[in-house]
């Protein structure tokens, strides 16, 4: 009996322990990132469609001027609750380069749902040239490429302050509490009422930050809802199966000892 209890404790401890290690690795960040409440956290968490659509609007109207979203195609927007006609219309607002045609010429055409979001700059050098030498990174994986990604994104968007006395910012830099090193080349991207939300929500900075964070969290892992749904079913199935196996094991072993 003791050995069995020990077995369980160790298995659980092993998981908790390695998790501890990964957060220990993350602890390199200087400032604590405040945790927000998100609809998508927890094992039953799902995205809020309204939030995603508003976040998409923020990305489209604000961030996409500098940041690409390379891994997202227009067709992926079904996840946000848009229907096929709406997606075609959204795609058609963009021009993409295609070709070569029969004459060997490249040409531009309206984007289709199967196209990916066009990047704002043709290459990294062009992006740097328009941003004072700094490169605006692709945003499709941003929520996973930073530890505690969603909370970090919200904190970054709302973390702009006047630099504390004694700190001199380098040329073109802005002070942000949560950016590592605190000096970031991106000026505060969000402004009060910077977008005009289609659903009438008041566009405070915090509201836009929340919405765009939810959108980027979805963009980082569009299959998250499916993953959790399958996970719940899998674990339930395994729990039942394991109980049955345990009962069988007891039966088979009843004669031994």
């Amino acid at each position, binding site marked *: 009996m003791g050995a069995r209890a020990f077995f369980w404790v160790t298995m659980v401890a092993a*998981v908790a322990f*390695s998790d501890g290690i990964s957060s220990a*690795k993350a602890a390199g960040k200087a400032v604590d990132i405040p945790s927000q409440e998100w609809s998508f956290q927890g094992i039953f968490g799902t995205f809020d469609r309204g939030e995603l659509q508003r976040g998409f609007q923020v990305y489209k109207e604000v961030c996409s001027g500098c940041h690409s979203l390379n891994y997202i195609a227009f067709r992926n927007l079904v996840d946000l609750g848009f229907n096929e006609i709406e997606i075609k219309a959204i795609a058609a607002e963009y021009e993409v380069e295609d070709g070569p045609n029969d004459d060997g010429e490249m040409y531009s055409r309206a984007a289709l749902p199967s196209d990916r979001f066009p990047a704002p700059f043709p290459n990294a050098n062009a992006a740097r040239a328009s941003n004072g030498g700094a490169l605006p990174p692709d945003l499709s994986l941003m929520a996973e490429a930073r530890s505690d990604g969603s909370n970090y994104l919200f904190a970054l968007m709302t973390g702009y302050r006047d630099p504390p006395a004694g700190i001199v910012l380098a040329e073109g830099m802005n002070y942000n509490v949560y950016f590592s090193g605190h000096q970031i080349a991106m000026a505060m991207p969000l402004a009060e009422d910077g977008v005009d939300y289609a659903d009438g929500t008041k566009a405070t900075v915090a509201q836009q930050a929340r919405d765009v964070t939810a959108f980027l969290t979805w963009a980082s892992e569009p299959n998250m809802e499916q993953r959790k749904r399958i996970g719940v079913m899998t*674990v339930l199935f395994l729990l039942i199966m394991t109980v049955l*196996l345990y009962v069988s094991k007891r039966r088979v072993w009843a004669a031994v000892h």
Partner: protein
Amino acid sequence: MSGPNFPNPIVRWIDHRLPIFTLMHHEMHEYPTPKNLNYWWNFGSLAGIVLVIMLVTGIVLSMHYTAHVDYAFQSVERIMRDVNYGWMIRYIHANGASFFFIVVYIHIFRGLYFGSYKAPRELLWILGVVILLLMMATAFMGYVLPWGQMSFWGATVITNLFSAIPGIGDWIVTLLWGGFSVDNPTLNRFYSLHYLLPFAIVGVVVLHIWALHRFGSNNPLGIDVRGKQDSIPFHPYYTIKDMFGLGVFLIIFSAVVFFMPNAMGHPDNYIPANPMVTPANIVPEWYFLPFYAILRAIPDKLLGVIAMFAAIGVLFILPWLDRSPVRSGTFRPIFKVFFWMLLADCVLLTYLGAKPPEGVYVILARIGTFYYFFHFLILLPALSIFETPKPLPRSISQPVLGSGAAAAAAAMPKENS
């Protein structure tokens, strides 16, 4: 010949010409196994199952992966987003590597505690250490394949270690890289080897199990099986017990795969590799951390590399360092204490491996490294001489010496079970 009598005529026809069914019956069905194995003995078969999981998911991933510096990262993201259930396959494979090490590390510490490395199981143990080395090489090269920042910089740091070898070091590094830095040729050869080595592991596992079946499993008492009353057939007793253990394992594994799939990974590996930007703190995967701590504890590069490899090398000679004739730690009062100290030392080294090499961390890592080798090279040989073991039970069927229960058991007729 007292082979099993198969009812199916086709099976009988084949078995007469190729006695594969007889072999399976001997080794997986009637195979006599000590009846007192505890749950720590589940981890061997569990390791085998995880190996199969890794092979299956790995082969599927290969169907969609592109081994080229310009496409590798992108192809992994396509697997995550566009391949049907690709995210599941990749999360199982990535977390499966971590769980493989968890399972095998438990399996090894089980062996350390119960003295499973002692005669006549020395070769079995050595084959196990070979498996561990192959696993490490495989996992290291696998981590390079997604071509994220940690892939690239981990590969750069670890391959650079070989340059410390006098004379041929630089030549080895160039050979590993296929050029003058970690680049496309490196990725290609790592991919090739990452596909190959798991099959080498399968081969060594076969030898490992072959050697195991020569004398059978050790057991928590560490004493030999004395006769029929001490053992039970593998099937159904241990098949059902292993399946229950597998169920428990799969619950924990699935919880991680489906609910926190990136908890054991590093966020930097979701940034595409960039040779121009060095991450602030380059850390290997958690299962390499104790060795990484040993490497960095030693100020000299070459000595650090030697110490790191010696940390595993010492396991090869363990059967000849621990000369105590008593296998199981249960009957070795002093050894038992030091076993737990060694485990604590390994946990400490794991923790330190993730810390930057500065200040108190360096000092602790040096103490931890010293203690690790002290345990194997000084303590174990000394204990073999100075420790007085507790009296051993006479047999597995009569485990408790001198108590009322033992007397009652001894009074029972022997022919049952």
